[in-house]
C-alpha cells in the first residue's frame, strides 16, 4: 500500500475533516485566481487600449474627458466636438511631431437602419493618421477605402457575408482587430470620407440623419518629438488653446485606473484576511486530527513506520485535499470570469481582457501551487509535532 493510497483511505474515512480542508483550499484558490485574473485582465486591457490609441497626448473638448474614457473603455456611445482649426494650432506648438484628428460617432438607438444600437464609431483621417493604420498594417488588413470599415473583435457582419448596416448605408466589414477587452472591441473604424458618405446616405435612408460637421472634430491625437517633456507640452497646450483638455497617455483612463487601484486594495485586504484564516483553520483541523489519531499514528510507528513516513502521510493527505480543493477553486474562478466578465466590467466600470490560453494555464498553475503550498505550510507544524511524539505515550492516550 503506497503512501498516497494510505492517505486516500484516511481522506475517505474522515469526510468532515476532508471537506473542511477542501473548502478552505477551494476558497483561497478561487478567490486568489479570480482576483488575479480580474486585475491582470483589467490592467492588460487598459494597457492595450492605451497602446492601441498610440498617441502621447489626446486633446478633447474640455469636459469631455470622462465621455472619451467611457467610449474607449466601455463602448458607451459618445459625441463631442471642437473646432477643426485646433488641429493646425496644435501642430504649430513646439514639441509636437504629428497630429491627427478623429471624429467620434454613434449609431442610433434601436433603429432598424443600424445593425447595432448605439455602437461607437471612430472616423480617422488616413492622410495624417498614425494610430489606426498601424494596427491595420500589423494585422495585415488593407488600407480602408470608401465604404469600408474595420471592426473591433466583437463586431460581426449582419448584411450578407461582410456587410454592416450603418444609418441605412451598407458598409463592408473588411476585418476585425485583435481583442482589447475594452469598448474598442464593440466599435467600428473608418475614414473621414466614409463618415461623410454614410452621412450623405443617411439623409434619405436613416430614421435620423448622421451629422458630420465639416469644421469640427472630436479629438486630436498627438505624437511628440523625441525628448519632449509630455507633461510640460500638455500644460502648454492647455494654456494655448482655451476650451480643450490635453490627456497625457499616462493619465488616460485615469478613472478606470483609480477604480482598478481601489479594487486591488480591496482584493489585497480580503486576501489578507482569507489566506491566514484558511491556513490557521487547516492547521487547527490537522492539529485536532493529529491529536485524535495519536494512538493510530503510534500504532503505525510500532508497526515500523518512520517519523518521516508519519509526517509525509499527513502532508500527502493534506496535499491531496488541497489539490482537489484548489482544482475545483480554479475551475470555478475561471468559469466565473468567463461567464460573468461582462457583468463585472459593467458593475465595476473597468475593462477586461481574457488572458491567452497560455497565460491562463500559467496563472492556474501558480494558483494551484500557491494553494498547495499554503496548505502544506498549515499542515507542516502539526505533521512535525505528531511525527516526533513518543509512540508509547501516543498509544497510551
Amino acid at each position, binding site marked *: 500500500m503506497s503512501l498516497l493510497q494510505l492517505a486516500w483511505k484516511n481522506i475517505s474515512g474522515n469526510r468532515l475533516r476532508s471537506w473542511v480542508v477542501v473548502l478552505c483550499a477551494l476558497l483561497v484558490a478561487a478567490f486568489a485566481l479570480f482576483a488575479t485574473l480580474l486585475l491582470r485582465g483589467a490592467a492588460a486591457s487598459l494597457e492595450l487600449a492605451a497602446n492601441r490609441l498610440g498617441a502621447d497626448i489626446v486633446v478633447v473638448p474640455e469636459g469631455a474627458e470622462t465621455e472619451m474614457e467611457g467610449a474607449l473603455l466601455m463602448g458607451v456611445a459618445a459625441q463631442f466636438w471642437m473646432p477643426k482649426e485646433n488641429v493646425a494650432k496644435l501642430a504649430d506648438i513646439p514639441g509636437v511631431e504629428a497630429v491627427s484628428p478623429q471624429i467620434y460617432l454613434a449609431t442610433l438607438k434601436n433603429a432598424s437602419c443600424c445593425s447595432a444600437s448605439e455602437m461607437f464609431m471612430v472616423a480617422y483621417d488616413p492622410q495624417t493618421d498614425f494610430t489606426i493604420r498601424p494596427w491595420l498594417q500589423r494585422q495585415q488588413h488593407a488600407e480602408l477605402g470608401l465604404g469600408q470599415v474595420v471592426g473591433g473583435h466583437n463586431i460581426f457582419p449582419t448584411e450578407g457575408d461582410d456587410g454592416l448596416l450603418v444609418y441605412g448605408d451598407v458598409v463592408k466589414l473588411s476585418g476585425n482587430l485583435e481583442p482589447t477587452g475594452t469598448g474598442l472591441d464593440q466599435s467600428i473604424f473608418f475614414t473621414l470620407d466614409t463618415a461623410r458618405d454614410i452621412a450623405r446616405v443617411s439623409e434619405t435612408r436613416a430614421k435620423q440623419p448622421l451629422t458630420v460637421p465639416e469644421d469640427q472634430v472630436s479629438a486630436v491625437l498627438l505624437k511628440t518629438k523625441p525628448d519632449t517633456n509630455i507633461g510640460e507640452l500638455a500644460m502648454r497646450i492647455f494654456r494655448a488653446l482655451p476650451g480643450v483638455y490635453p490627456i497625457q497617455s499616462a493619465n488616460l483612463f485615469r478613472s478606470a485606473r483609480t477604480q482598478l487601484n481601489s479594487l486591488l486594495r480591496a482584493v489585497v485586504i480580503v486576501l489578507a484576511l482569507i489566506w491566514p484564516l484558511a491556513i490557521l483553520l487547516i492547521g487547527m483541523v490537522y492539529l485536532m486530527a493529529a491529536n485524535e489519531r495519536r494512538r493510530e499514528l503510534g500504532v503505525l*510507528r510500532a508497526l515500523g513506520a518512520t517519523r518521516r513516513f508519519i509526517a509525509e502521510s499527513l502532508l500527502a493527505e493534506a496535499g491531496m485535499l488541497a489539490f482537489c480543493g484548489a482544482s475545483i477553486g480554479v475551475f470555478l474562478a475561471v468559469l466565473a470570469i468567463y461567464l460573468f466578465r461582462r457583468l463585472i466590467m459593467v458593475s465595476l466600470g473597468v475593462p477586461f481582457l481574457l488572458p491567452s490560453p497560455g497565460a491562463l494555464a500559467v496563472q492556474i498553475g501558480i494558483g494551484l501551487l500557491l494553494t498547495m503550498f499554503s496548505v502544506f505550510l498549515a499542515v507542516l507544524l502539526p505533521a512535525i509535532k505528531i511525527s516526533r511524539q513518543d509512540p508509547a505515550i501516543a498509544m497510551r492516550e
Partner: protein
Amino acid sequence: MIRLEDVSKVYELGKGNTVAAVRGVSLAIGAGEFAAIVGRSGSGKTTILNLAAGLTRPTAGRVTFDGVDLWKLTDQQQSHLRSRKIGFVFQFPSLLPTLTVHENVILPTRFGANGPSPDAPQRAEAMLRRVGLAEKLSSYPRQLSVGQQQRVVIARALINQPQLLLADEPTSNLDEKTEMEILGLFRELHASLGVTIVLVTHTRQLVTSGMKAIEMADGRIVEASTTAGPAGNAARLPLDLTQ
C-alpha cells in the same frame, strides 16, 4: 535476543511532576522463549514492552536487540528493525478503521527497508487463513467482533515473520472462551513458527507450562520463574534474570 540492562523509565507529567514507571530493571529474553510479564495495573509491564521495542527511550540503562543498542540506531534503522523483526499485539483496538482486514494485515510490509514484497498479499491471505479469518479479507474492522479483530492483529503482527512477538494484554477485552482461543493461537504459533513471544498480562492464571513468568510490581521485577508444568507450578529463578 532482547536484553534490558538496569533500565529505568521516568515519565514527565508536567509542572515538575514525574512518575517512575520502571526502576532499574535488568532482563533478558532468549530466542524461542515464551515469556509472560505479569503484574497489577501500573506495575510497569507495558512500559517494559515499549522499552523492549524501542518505542520509548529509557531514562537510564541500555536496551539491546541481538546485541545492538536500540538507541544508537537512527529512527529509520530502528523503524526497519521493528518492521522486520518485531510483531505487536496491542490491548486496545489497533486496526486502522479505514482499511480492510487484508489491507491492515499487509500494512507492516510497507515499512520495510525494501518496501512491500510482491508476495505480501498472498502472505497476508495465508496469515488470515491461519487465524481462521480467510473469509473476512474485504471486511472492515467495525464489521468484526472484538475477538476476530484481535486475530487480525495477530495476523498483522506475523506478516513479516518477526523473530519476536510482543503482546500487551491481548485478551483483556475478550470473554473467557475467546481468551482461551487467542492464547491457544499464541501457543500454536510459538510451537509451529518458533517465534519468541513476550506476553503481558495481569492474570497469573494465563501463565502455563513451559513459559517464563516475570512478575512486576511498582516498576520492578519482583519474581521470575520458569513453569515446569501447569499454571502455578513454577520453578523460582533469581530476580535479576540475565539468561
